[in-house]
């Protein structure tokens, strides 16, 4: 009965770093709470009504004391802020080469899609020792993807992508929770993150029906929705080629000026749903919108495909 945990697993590097900061702040909190407690108790005892102690000239003001108990907390506070901010900023962007995983949250389940093809529901399998980047969106209300063991959490918002990354350092099975109230089965929108040895992960990935990878599925959708008709060399329509576009700046026509925008997941998604908002310089705004025609899952697969043709040379 008494075998209950007091701290979650430290299953990632950042978990250890966050815990270190937390322990520091815990010590600060404990120190000052105990200090105040001791002061109150000792004053209340020593100066209780009826004791024979010196009560002459009780001080009512002391500039230097005020300066100390403003200055010291200020210094400590700013130290804690800086430490926390550094950790946060440093871990904001994932390192290059992170393994891509796509997540769609909807009431009340997590749909997880690996780039290599396997999809899972309410489960996330990841390899040990590698950075994993999740690109996430919601199909309905705001959810939040939370893995306590990695100390990571990110709200999953409808209408946009948010991302989170982590690098698991310990094999095991860890809780996954939805951490933003989302309706009836919010408490049930939970799952498991399984960290496996890299070899086992590869095995797992290629199991359960050797289906096409996400990028390959995306390529099929790219054809199915007739994207290829314009974007892969058309005689009739002059449309930008998409090989190598991901991750690079794209020139956008705005009135008489040309601005550059980064072709990230947001740009690719907006280009499919609202293509005439950011038209590439030198092209006509001819592309139709696919809003309400492509589901979030399919859209992620198409984007995965476009990302995959970034590295290769297209020879068509």
């Amino acid at each position, binding site marked *: 009965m008494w075998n209950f945990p007091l701290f979650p697993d430290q299953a990632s590097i950042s978990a250890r770093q966050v815990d270190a900061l937390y322990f520091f702040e815990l010590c600060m909190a404990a120190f000052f709470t105990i200090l105040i407690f001791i002061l109150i108790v000792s004053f209340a005892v020593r100066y209780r009504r009826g004791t024979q102690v010196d009560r002459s000239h009780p001080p009512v003001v002391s500039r230097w004391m005020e300066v100390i108990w403003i200055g010291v907390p200020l210094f400590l506070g700013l130290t804690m802020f800086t430490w926390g901010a550094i950790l946060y900023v440093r871990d904001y962007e994932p390192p290059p080469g992170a393994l891509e995983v796509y997540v769609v949250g909807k009431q009340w389940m997590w749909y997880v899609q690996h780039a290599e093809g396997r999809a899972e529901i309410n489960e996330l399998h990841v390899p040990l020792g590698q950075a994993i980047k999740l690109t996430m969106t919601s199909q309905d209300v705001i959810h939040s993807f939370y893995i306590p063991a990695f100390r990571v959490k990110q709200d999953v918002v409808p209408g946009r992508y948010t991302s989170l990354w982590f690098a698991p350092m310990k094999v095991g099975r860890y809780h996954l929770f939805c951490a933003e109230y989302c309706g009836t089965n919010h408490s049930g929108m939970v799952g498991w993150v399984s960290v496996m040895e890299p070899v086992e992960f590869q095995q797992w990935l290629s199991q359960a029906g050797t289906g096409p990878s996400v990028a390959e599925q995306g390529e099929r959708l790219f054809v199915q929705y007739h994207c290829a008709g314009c974007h892969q060399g058309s005689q009739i329509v002059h449309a930008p080629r998409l090989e190598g576009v991901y991750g690079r700046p794209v020139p956008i026509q705005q009135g008489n000026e040309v601005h550059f925008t980064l072709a990230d997941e947001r740009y690719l998604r907006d280009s499919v749903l*609202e*293509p005439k908002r950011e038209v590439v310089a030198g092209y006509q705004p001819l592309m139709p919108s696919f809003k309400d025609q492509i589901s979030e899952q399919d859209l992620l697969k198409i984007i995965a495909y476009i990302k995959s043709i970034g590295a290769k040379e297209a020879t068509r």
Partner: protein
Amino acid sequence: MTMEPVTADRRSAGKPIAAEDEPILEVQFDDLEQQHEASMLGMWLFLATEVLFFGGLITSYAVYRSTSPREVALASHHMKVGLGCLNTVILLGSSLTMALAVRASQLRAHRDLLWWLGGTMVLGTLFLGVKAIEYTAEYQENLVPGWNFQIPEENRATIEQEQLNPGRFQMFFVLYFFMTGLHAIHLIIGIALVGVMAYLSWRRWFSGGGATQIEVTGLYWHFIDIVWVFLYPLLYLIDVHS
């Protein structure tokens, strides 16, 4: 606009005023000056809350305008700038009549007070009339969200071509109706308040001529005017030349 307070000298120079016609001192106050100061501060604080109230809407408008400038600009072209301008003149005029009413109350000029208050009510009602005309036109043009909203014919091509967000286009009208509607509600309350003040002044209900009460009403009226002075450029004028 600062008016000179009514002092004993001015009173003796003007019309005779009954010696007992001093404002009644409410029991919680120590003297008339305190009572007057409290009334003024109270109304200024209330106006501060109204600033935050409208400010929330104006902030939302500013956010949507900065993230979707094209949609908001297109939508704002449907505003009837001429009618809005007329309304601005009307409302500014009503602030003038209100200010003159405040002055009349301080000078104990009873008839002038009633005329100026009446004029304020008339101009305020005129504003509402013009607004009603605008709302009717917008209703007929199918621009009322939640009721009969449709993207207007002349904008459909542009929205199609530039792939604009129709939700954001409609959003302009949501905020337009909410902001001007809220303003109109405040104006209706203002007209009623001025009406009540006029009636009570006519019946000589107020002790001491009611100068403080009229002045407080005047503050509220001027605030309604200032809100409009912000709404008109933000909603009507801002993209008029784009």
